[in-house]
């Protein structure tokens, strides 16, 4: 949760593609399920992902997808969310709210040991929550956190200043990098620079063995793992191959068994799955849906009128972008909550479908009529260069907006420059950016639209500068509403307001893919598979 995809590595999003259509996805999953049987023990699994090597094996604040991928096999969270949507305990056995929902008692699992043999205790939980979650991993989510204390030998009590909804609390326990870290390793040190971040000691199914920089991590089976009989495999290698074509070759040659988060380009997905030796699936990303967004900088007086912002979206054919830029592996977004979110999504929002005539009419009505060949106004469009696809989308958006009489100056800066210009300098009129949100909308989603999300220099927050008292008040209510039905109604209201206001909307919701050898079993079985522990993965003979 606290692990906003703060800084994304340069990943080619061309890896989303048409390739995995019927033959790749459906056919290969049938093949995969047929191969399922009695789990085979032992062996080495070599995995990769669609990005580069992390800056550290574990980054307390998250640090992006790469360190989340590497650290999530070593550390564990108090809770986990299953594919069915159900929350289950991991290092916690159970949790229960107080009648006023201002505190939660969490019973800690007994018999869990860290990789160095020391037992995990409530002290580790208290340290992790108060020193790591509160300060780094989940700081925005814990804005109303009042403290944590022990309740006997095997339980802790989370205290909040305000009533805290159960779904919010459960999501907090399952947050991407809301891990329980060993107090005896981190206490008294700076957690950001602690050398243990490069050789972590956790409670997870895998123990850190080696990091060959520029090449791979080697993890070995945790023989003292608290889940009896797991993990199935002896060794897990996380290998880094920068180039998607190189990844495709390594997967094809059998050097890599599984690649998550768009490891290879769409044509390669189609080619590999057609052999029957590989499967591709878009399962395992339900809790980490990525979107490509268009942000209007409200500091520009042009965007003061809602009609202008709505016109930006009506002028853009998002189906065309999905088809040409993402090879069909994307769909137009409808509102601030993404469609795979079963808890809160509503399709009943203001429709920003492709309609250039409506866009022109809205601009006319807003007081920007087109006079001859002159532009209505000119905007600086910044396409964030951390994904190659953003630049391509930028080129199309420029054409589309120019077709309705809006002049566009397009720039595609690299990652550091994009972060600085969008989130520190607010140096853009329109920005093509990206975000990835879990199901719980507070604060990850809502902070893009509230005044407390405007934090200069902090990426993936409210850079548009949009805020209204109505939305701020509504989000405050969502934060504390403990009745699930009422809370859902409020989130639906939130979506309706935001989609109509259109300060920042997803152009597209992206579909991520995992590619694996058919020998790899029990994968993609977690709604955030990149950040899952992989304790139950195994390889058929």
């Amino acid at each position: 949760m606290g692990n906003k995809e703060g800084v994304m590595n340069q990943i080619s999003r061309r890896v989303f593609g048409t390739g995995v259509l019927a033959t790749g996805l459906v056919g290969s999953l049938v093949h995969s399920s047929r191969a399922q049987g009695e789990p085979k023990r032992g062996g080495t699994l070599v995995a990769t992902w669609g990005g580069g090597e992390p800056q550290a094996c574990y980054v307390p604040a998250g640090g992006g997808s790469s360190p989340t991928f590497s650290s999530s096999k070593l550390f564990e969270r108090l809770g986990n969310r299953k594919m069915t949507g159900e929350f289950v305990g991991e290092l916690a056995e159970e949790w229960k709210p107080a009648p006023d929902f201002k505190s939660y008692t969490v019973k800690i699992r007994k018999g869990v040991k860290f990789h160095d043999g020391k037992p995990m205790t409530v002290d580790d939980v208290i340290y992790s929550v108060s020193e790591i979650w509160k300060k780094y991993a989940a700081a925005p989510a814990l804005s109303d956190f009042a403290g944590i204390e022990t309740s006997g030998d095997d339980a802790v009590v989370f205290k909040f200043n305000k009533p805290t909804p159960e779904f919010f609390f459960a999501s907090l326990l399952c947050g991407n990098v809301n891990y329980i870290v060993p107090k005896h390793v981190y206490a008294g040190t700076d957690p950001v620079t602690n050398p243990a971040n490069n050789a972590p000691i956790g409670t997870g199914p895998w123990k850190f063995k080696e990091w060959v920089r520029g090449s791979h991590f080697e993890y070995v089976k945790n023989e003292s793992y608290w889940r009896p009989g797991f993990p199935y495999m002896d060794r897990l290698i996380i290998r880094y191959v920068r180039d998607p074509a190189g990844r495709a070759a390594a997967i094809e040659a059998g050097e890599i068994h599984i690649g998550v988060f768009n490891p290879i380009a769409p044509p390669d997905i189609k080619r590999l799955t057609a052999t029957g030796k590989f499967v591709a699936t878009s399962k395992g990303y339900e809790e980490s849906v990525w979107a490509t967004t268009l942000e209007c900088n409200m500091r520009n007086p042009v965007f003061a009128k809602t009609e202008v912002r709505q016109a930006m979206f009506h002028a853009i054919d998002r189906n065309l972008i999905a088809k040409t830029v993402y090879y069909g592996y994307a769909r137009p977004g409808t509102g601030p909550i993404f469609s795979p979110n079963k808890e809160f999504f509503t399709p009943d929002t203001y429709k920003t479908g492709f309609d250039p005539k409506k866009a022109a009419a809205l601009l006319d009505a807003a007081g920007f009529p087109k006079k001859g060949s002159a532009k209505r106004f000119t905007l600086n469009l910044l396409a964030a260069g951390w994904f190659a696809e953003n630049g391509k989308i930028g080129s199309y958006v420029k054409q589309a907006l120019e077709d309705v009489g809006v002049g566009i100056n397009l720039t595609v800066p690299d990652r550091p420059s994009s972060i600085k210009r969008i989130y520190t300098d607010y140096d853009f009129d329109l920005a093509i950016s990206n975000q990835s949100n879990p199901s719980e909308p507070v604060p990850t989603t809502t902070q893009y639209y509230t005044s407390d999300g405007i934090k200069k220099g902090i990426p993936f927050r409210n850079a548009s500068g949009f805020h209204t008292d109505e939305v701020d008040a509504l989000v405050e209510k969502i934060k504390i509403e403990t009745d699930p039905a009422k809370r859902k109604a409020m989130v639906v209201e939130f979506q309706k307001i935001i989609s109509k206001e259109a300060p920042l909307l997803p152009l597209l919701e992206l579909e991520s893919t995992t590619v694996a050898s058919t020998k790899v079993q029990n994968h993609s079985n977690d709604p955030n598979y990149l950040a899952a522990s992989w304790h139950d993965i195994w390889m058929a003979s």
Partner: protein
Amino acid sequence: MASTSGSSRRNAALRLLKRRLLQAIPLMLGVVVINFVLIHLAPGSFLELMTAENQVSDPATVELLRKTYGLDDPVWLQLVKYIWALMHLDFGFSYRQNMPVLDAIWVGLPATLLLMISSITLAFVIGVAAGVVASAKVRTVWDTAVSVAAMFFFAAPSFWLGIMMIVLFAVKLGWLPVSGMETIGGGGGVLDILHHLILPTLALGLFYAATYARVMRSSMLEVAQLDFVRTARAKGLSRRRVTLSHVLRNALLPVVTILGVQMGTILAGSVVIESVFSWPGVGSLLFDSVSSRNYPVVLGIMVLGSLVVIAANIAVDLIYMWLDPRIEIR
């Protein structure tokens, strides 16, 4: 007499070495200053990226970090401090790797040097051999074959060549590994590393081999026209002996010259090849450091890279003297 000549050549070599080392000082200073300024002109800083990655919004913490990394000083003072630290072999600290810059570079340096040395050796051996064959069999099918091959490898981008070789030799034929420097968990021996080294060496080295082949061919043909070669032939020496002992040695001079000049471009080329083959060298580190504005590491690699180029050029000068003793007279 021979001993006097040997001693005089040794002294000349030492004088040259001393001169080159003295010249290297302002050169290195220029490298540091230019790179430092260029890097600081790029928008975005590592502090901004660091605070972004760690979601630090507290101004006091940002200020503390600014102070910790010396970014609260004016840029000119940062430069002076950096040069002073360099003079004490302190290359700074890499926040991203959470270790001293020199340690971070040292992790990948052996792999890069291995790739560079193997590529340049391959390029030199194949290039020179191909050039000799082409010049000896001028206007024959051999000459044409060398020219066509040289044109192909000169024109083919090394990353494309690398991917094509991976597809053919690793994926289709299964003879060689796709990427990496050693078999993970099961290798690490010399033979294993050599096995992994073949494809990246070919991908990087064949471009330079093509260049050397073209230069060597024309140089051989030019030298073969000179009087001393005609004299050697008139003395009754065999064609093979004339070619190898007289023509080849003198024809090597231009190849040796461009070899020294190209050390820098080979280092740059290794960045691409390391990426294609996931070779764990400083190329990957440089790529990551540039995209994360990790200035200390970028500067460290630039400085060490410049040192390698300077050392290579000094070595070339010495080889030059050995190949052509007249050079010490000039």
